[in-house]
């Protein structure tokens, strides 16, 4: 006959029970903490984004002219990793069209666009904002051989089906990039040349 083991009450039963409960609670807490971390990292898993239809426009202001130059040749890629999103947008300078060839060539000359043919824009923001209606990004813009930083630039985010539309204005100025302001009738253009960004992003 199989001997049945019976539980022998321990003399310090209450204390042992408390110790066991304590051990179990600490085990549970460890598991919980591990799961919280796992869940957080799951929520912020690596994701990559590619730019689809994109429009970048600069606005130039002169007492006699209001000019917008638009490029649809921008390309972009974004990587979200470890709670941080890094996006790169690049556009060739010569693809901006203001409706006048002469002005566009002058713009390329003034911005040293043949020497530095690509405008690079790097955006960094917390991954938690990737689903927020408003993203506040730290931007680094490489343009005309110079680099300028713009912190906490507000960008609007709109969900469009599977894609995300990002719009916003980057407050570029000529002086940020050591650009000699072109003049017309001896009057130079305004220092501000804000860049309007309108991009469609697809998540991979």
């Amino acid at each position: 006959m199989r001997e049945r083991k019976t539980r022998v009450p321990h003399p310090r039963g209450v204390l042992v029970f408390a110790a066991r409960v304590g051990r179990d609670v600490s085990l549970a807490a460890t598991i919980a903490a591990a799961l919280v971390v796992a869940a957080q990292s799951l929520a912020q898993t690596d994701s990559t984004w590619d730019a689809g239809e994109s429009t970048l426009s600069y606005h130039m202001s002169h007492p006699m002219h209001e000019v917008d130059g638009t490029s649809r040749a921008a390309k972009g890629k974004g990587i979200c990793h470890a709670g941080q999103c890094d996006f790169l947008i690049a556009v060739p300078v010569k693809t901006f069209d203001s409706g006048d060839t002469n002005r566009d060539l002058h713009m390329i000359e003034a911005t040293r666009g043949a020497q530095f043919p690509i405008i690079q824009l790097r955006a960094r923001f917390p991954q938690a904002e990737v689903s927020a209606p408003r993203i506040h990004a730290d931007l680094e813009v490489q343009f005309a051989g110079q680099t300028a930083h713009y912190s906490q630039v507000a960008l609007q985010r709109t969900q469009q089906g599977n894609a995300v539309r990002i719009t916003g204005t980057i407050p570029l100025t000529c002086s940020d990039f050591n650009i000699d302001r072109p003049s017309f009738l001896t009057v130079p253009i305004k220092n501000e040349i804000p860049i309007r960004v309108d991009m469609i992003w697809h998540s991979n």
Partner: protein
Amino acid sequence: MRQTKFDYQAGLLGLSLLIPICALPQSSAPAQPSPPQTAPATPQTPSAQQPELPNAPAPVQQPAPSSSPQQPSLSDLGFTPQQTQADPKLQARLNKRTEMLKIHQRLGLITLAPMAATLITGPMAKAKGHDGQTIREPSNANLDFHAALGGTTAALYFTTAYFAIFAPKIPDNPKHGAIRFHEALAFVHGPGMVLTPILGAMAFQQEQNGEKVHGIASLHGPVAIATVCAYGASIVAVSWPIHLKFWEKQ
């Protein structure tokens, strides 16, 4: 009893599974539940949200994001080497082109002054009087002044044209926009600027011979007016569209 302990541990495990699920909405996506109106447009917003976002960057001006393998690079975007490569020769051509066109612009505006003056002094250099009446010859001073202004205009005009014609051309750059009208009008005022002094000289010769200005020479005035109009339109075309707002602070 043993089974009870397992149940207890399983219960704890289940509880531990519930904790992160409950905790998730608070920790990972603070912006989603809040309506857009709650997010102020000012850049100060992120600093207000900072405590909730452990990975959020500092609101102060941040140095350049350092390059790391996690950051996308220019090569990821699929630009061709031709698109990304610097072209110092093209930059030099563009610089020279801009320099020459700036001179073209300045001289073109300067030319407008003697051109307008020549047009205004034209009637003063013309013989007056109808058939059967005494013809009043213009004074030599008027004639000389008009001719000198015309000569200055022509010299400035062709110098201006030189800087446009010989400015370096940029290949693979089809022209569009206002510059096309500007250049098209050159085919009107260019021949006009050649014809006007020739017709003027012919008209002067006929007057000197005591003849009434006749034939093609009688077109000196109309050709001059058409030339000035085309020239003015050419300046307006290259400046179009014009938004006058000089009163606004620069």
